[in-house]
């Protein structure tokens, strides 16, 4: 055994409490320590993932009480894959913002890096936990850091965006608590595997009521329409790298929670169709809204919501191919949307409004950044030979396997919409004249390296999709096999 999954939570929390002390001795440590922690955890999660793929899931017991009495963490191929992805992106977000925050004073820098680290830890915790109340605690950690990061810049309209987020976020927490309460009162347990085995004892009325509360609560965090009112504002007002962290890390964790609840906890046959319906509504509304946006980051935010709709549709098929496709989109979206946020914030660096018009003609001044933005745009639309093509293809084949022809037509139609609004931006970057008052800003070295890494991954996955598909197949069969999950957790020593 190389290490224990509980370190994913314990080390960042210890570091978070330690950083204010270290900062008193050496100010630079508040920037460096979070990066070291994330790098260590990434190494740990990669080695644990290899272990898990070979020997089966690790169930970590906490406080010496085995499930269902105590809390447990589950590091399975499915959760391990997501954790590795989140930590990788988290490390990149840290590296991107490392120098970016150098011109900021000590205290705001301390708070920025603390909140960023806790945002990642909370999301990782949501993914790892096998206890439903523990998940609530991690959602709290994630969302409180997210409120703080949204309101980070005082000169923007960030307070309003953050307040909107707080209102909806507290509603989500309350509803989640109500759902947990119903389940506990009926089954007398909080462990997910234990709940799954006892779910048939619950009266259907209670089942539906708690599922409604769960979907509403987690839907707010997972940006499901009509609960995503906070998202475009939060993405637009938060610092650029934080937008990437929201799209790549927080939303992924929330989608994981939705899927875990529907696939493992509840066994309602209608729930899958429900996922498809809300997925379609979310996707269509978000993509048609994206085409009307004037601001770059709002457009990216709506596109992100649209992709989450596609993920929900793919999960709603309820087949192994569907899960595989959904995971593939989640992976691609995390990589590509981060690249778009990173490069997009440099293209519109000196613009106060961050309008799409302000990025006109930047290709002459920032050739590499523009190229990377274009690469990201082409990849997310799903043009071959980039990474996004394979995930979209996977969705289409999964839909064809379930003979859902209407969905294939819809996904293709929405892709055309995506093509229009992304090409509009790329067209402006390359073929329009630069706005006179827009000064181009050269990316810092770290930012450039981070963007190049992401671009390289997009090309790598595009040309050799086999580099990830094996892992994705294993992760998706792990989610499908509910009885094995229950057996592993309840037989943990």
């Amino acid at each position: 055994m190389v290490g224990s999954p509980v370190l994913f939570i314990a080390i960042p929390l210890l570091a978070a409490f330690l950083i204010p002390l270290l900062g008193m001795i050496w100010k630079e440590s508040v920037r460096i320590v979070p990066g070291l922690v994330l790098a260590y955890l990434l190494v740990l999660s990669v080695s644990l993932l290899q272990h898990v793929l070979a020997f089966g899931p690790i169930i970590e017991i906490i406080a010496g009480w085995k499930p269902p009495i105590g809390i447990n963490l589950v590091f399975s191929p499915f959760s391990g894959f997501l954790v590795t992805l989140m930590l990788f992106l988290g490390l990149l977000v840290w590296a991107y913002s490392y120098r970016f925050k150098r011109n900021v004073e000590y205290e705001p820098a301390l708070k920025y890096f603390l909140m960023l680290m806790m945002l990642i830890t909370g999301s990782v915790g949501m993914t790892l936990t096998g206890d439903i109340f523990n998940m609530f605690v991690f959602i709290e950690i994630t969302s409180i850091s997210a409120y703080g990061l949204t309101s980070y810049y005082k000169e923007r309209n960030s307070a309003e965006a953050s307040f909107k987020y707080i209102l909806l976020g507290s509603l989500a927490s309350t509803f989640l608590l109500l759902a947990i309460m119903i389940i506990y009162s009926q089954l007398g347990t909080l462990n997910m595997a234990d709940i799954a085995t006892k779910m048939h004892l619950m009266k259907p009325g209670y089942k539906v009521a708690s599922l409604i509360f769960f979907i509403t609560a987690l839907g707010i965090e997972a940006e499901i329409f009509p609960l995503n009112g906070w998202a475009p504002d939060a993405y637009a007002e938060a610092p650029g790298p934080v937008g990437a962290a929201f799209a790549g890390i927080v939303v992924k964790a929330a989608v994981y929670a939705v899927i875990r609840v529907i696939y493992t906890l509840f066994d309602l046959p209608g729930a899958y169709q429900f996922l498809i319906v809300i997925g379609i509504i979310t996707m269509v509304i978000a993509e048609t809204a994206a085409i009307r946006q004037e601001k770059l980051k709002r457009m990216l935010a709506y596109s992100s919501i649209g992709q989450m709709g596609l993920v929900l549709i793919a999960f709603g098929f309820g087949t192994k191919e569907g899960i595989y496709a959904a995971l593939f989109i989640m992976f691609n979206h995390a990589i590509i949307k981060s690249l778009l946020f990173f490069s997009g914030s440099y293209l519109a660096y000196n613009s106060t409004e961050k309008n799409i018009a302000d990025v006109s003609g930047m290709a002459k001044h920032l050739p590499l950044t523009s190229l990377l933005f274009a690469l990201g745009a082409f990849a997310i639309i799903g043009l071959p030979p980039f990474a996004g093509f394979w995930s979209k293809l996977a969705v289409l084949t999964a839909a064809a396997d379930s003979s859902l022809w209407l969905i294939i037509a819809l996904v293709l139609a929405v892709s055309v919409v995506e093509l229009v609004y992304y090409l509009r931006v790329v067209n402006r970057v390359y073929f329009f004249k630069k706005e006179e008052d827009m000064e181009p800003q050269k990316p810092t070295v770290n930012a450039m390296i981070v963007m190049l890494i992401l671009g390289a991954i997009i090309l790598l996955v595009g040309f050799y999709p086999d580099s990830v598909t094996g892992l994705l197949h294993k992760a998706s069969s792990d989610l499908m096999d509910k009885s094995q999950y229950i057996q592993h957790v309840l037989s943990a020593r």
Partner: protein
Amino acid sequence: MKKLLVIVLLAVLGFYTASTFFDIGFGSPHFVKGIDPVKDIYINQTVKSLNVPNAVTSIVVNFRGFDTLGEVTVLFLAVTVLGSVLYKKRHEVGERSVLFSASSVVTSGAKLIFPAIILLGAYVFIHGHLSPGGGFQGGVIIATGFLLMLLSYESYSVSHKALSIVESLAGITFAGVGLLGLLHGGSFLHNFLPTGVMNSLFSGGIIPIIYIAVGFKVAAELTGVIYTVLNEKGEGNE
């Protein structure tokens, strides 16, 4: 028309979910159903293997101690976020705005009662595993003591640095005890110390240590919140 539809839909949904909650019957002695509910195990094991008379404490600190570590972090984060939202450059921090100063009855009374409040708070969290109360409650009591002092004396100030050191050390103690459990007992937050004799002060293994750390942390954090908010000089009241 649209609004009417929304109201009707909400009413139906609200009635349905509310009736679910009335059905559960919160407050009746046995509202938790299910086969072998964990509550029975908690109550039996609290006395049997932890030697602690207070079941609430044993659940909060031992059985579900991981959640408590999370909740402590939530509080820590809330304070961090508040500090970030209200952050001003040092020279922009003004005097505390006072409408009228406290009367001599309040000031002399506060001086008298302040040590007693601190003592009560400390008592509540040190005896958290024996009697009702615990780290969160004790910490809040101590913070109210500081609130009283800050309200009665305009010049009273708390060192932000000291608060932050206390807060960090307490947090490190909690996480550190958890990691020691991982080293000694094989699982995070494992109760690796002897549990001692029931009802004595030094019993319950790591439970009192964690609760004392939580007490210090909550006290320092809430005092920090009060101090930050009191010193917030808004644009309206200059």
